[in-house]
């Protein structure tokens, strides 16, 4: 049982990492800093609904550290970590209320990821100018959250049956 769980976590880490890489290769060129599709959130959603919040949190942190060291720098890692932490906390609360489906949780995650990044960037760069991007970031987070939520619920439906094994 334990092995299967570890294997699944490993797979999800790899998946999150690859998705981050894919996103890195295809940057969203719309001139808005911090705008991300957040593909990697797919793996975190699956972990959150299949395994539990501790595993999902671990996955989220490992992803940020791995991606930060491979593609980015300390500053980028800090932004990501802030985004990931805020988004994770928001998703967890949203899930605990049991008011939302996977899609709803995913939308909240997407939005808060973007919002968290911009807030840290504003604090670090000491500029309020970045707040102008906030509305666009919310919209982008919502749209990508919907897409990722739908995919995640499809995955969830298919492997829910075997998830009892974990």
């Amino acid at each position: 049982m334990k092995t299967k769980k570890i294997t699944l976590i490993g797979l999800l880490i790899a998946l999150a990492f690859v998705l981050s890489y894919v996103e890195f290769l295809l940057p969203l060129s719309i001139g808005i800093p911090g705008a991300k599709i957040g593909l990697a959130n797919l793996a975190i959603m699956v972990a959150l609904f299949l395994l539990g919040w501790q595993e999902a949190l671990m996955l989220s942190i490992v992803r940020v550290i791995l991606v930060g060291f491979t593609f980015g720098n300390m500053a980028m890692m800090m932004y990501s970590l802030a985004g990931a932490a805020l988004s994770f906390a928001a998703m967890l609360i949203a899930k605990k209320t049991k008011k939302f489906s996977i899609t709803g949780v995913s939308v909240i995650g997407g939005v808060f990821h973007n919002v968290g990044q911009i807030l840290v960037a504003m604090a670090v760069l000491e500029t309020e100018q970045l707040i102008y991007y906030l509305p666009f970031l919310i919209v982008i987070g919502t749209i990508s959250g919907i897409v990722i939520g739908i995919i995640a619920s499809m995955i969830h439906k298919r492997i829910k049956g075997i998830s009892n094994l974990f």
Partner: protein
Amino acid sequence: MLLQGTPCFYLVVLIGEYMSKGKVLGVILIILLIVFIVFTRKGLFGKGDVAEEQNRYTATFIDIFDTRTEIVGYAPTEDEFSKKATALREELINYNNLYDIYNDYEGVNNIKTINDNAGVQPVVVDEKIIDLLKFSKEMYAATDGRVNIAMGSVLSIWHRYREAGVDDPENAKLPPIEDLKAAAEHTDIENLIIDETAKTVYLQDPEMSLDVGSTAKGYAAQKTMEFARAQGYSNMLLSLGGNIAGIDGRIDGTPFRLGIQNPDMDSDVDYIKKVDIKDGQCVVSSGDYQRYYEVDGKRYCHIINPDTLFPSDTFAQVSIITDDSGMADAFSTALYNMTIEDGLEFVNTNDNIEAMWVYADGSIVYSDNFEQYLVD
């Protein structure tokens, strides 16, 4: 266990168990493979870095080529941008000192040294001076003598009268044509002798002098952009007194957009046209609206036509788009001194040059393909 639930704990568990469990081994191998692929490919994508934290900066310097230098670029911090801007400034200052015709610099033989030794002796100079003079000779040939750096004797007369005229507009005077004609006797570029093996330059005619104003700035801009490229700088704009060249475009992938100064300075419209330039392209304007003086209500600008020895007054402005800053500077000066017919023929028979002529009344003539760069 204290570490339970933390990422480290899971990583330890993963590593601890991989020997016995084939699946875990597989997962780790996949992760390693991805890391490997990413690291080997990173060189290709390193340039893009992380787009969201690149800020735009502008640096302005006023100590180069008697004009203003502006550098626009992107970097995560102002310090990093300053480093690049300073490196470019040092390059430019080196060119500035070598190509200076007014000032001496300790331990440097520059163009002024060459002028001071006209008819006296050959001067040993830096390779960069030889290259500029050779380039200037090429421009002389390419423009049928309309860009002539050996015109120093004529230009210095105009320079003197212009400065006096700007300082005291009431008593502004035109230089006597006899003086200009006498000076024009000493403008034969064939008397500029370049010895490439000895690395010397000699002016055979003791009365002649070099004025590299029409080529030096553009040539230095071109070389500096080549230096910037060699350093791996990206997404950068260099403006040397309005001679603007770009590397790549803006950080968001859109091209750099440049305004072309409206020659009518009293107008509320800042830019007569706007153009989008591609990577490596360069835009420059020549006109009568900044360096000029007036005599009896008529404007006399700083661009002197070698044929008439007087400032040209056909156009208010000529702008060029091409892919070499050095040529851009020389060609815009040459076009300013040509008739519209000669100019159109010159531009349309040369590849990679487009031009726009603006008359004093605001009417505009374009070369065959200039309009493709226009925006708005």
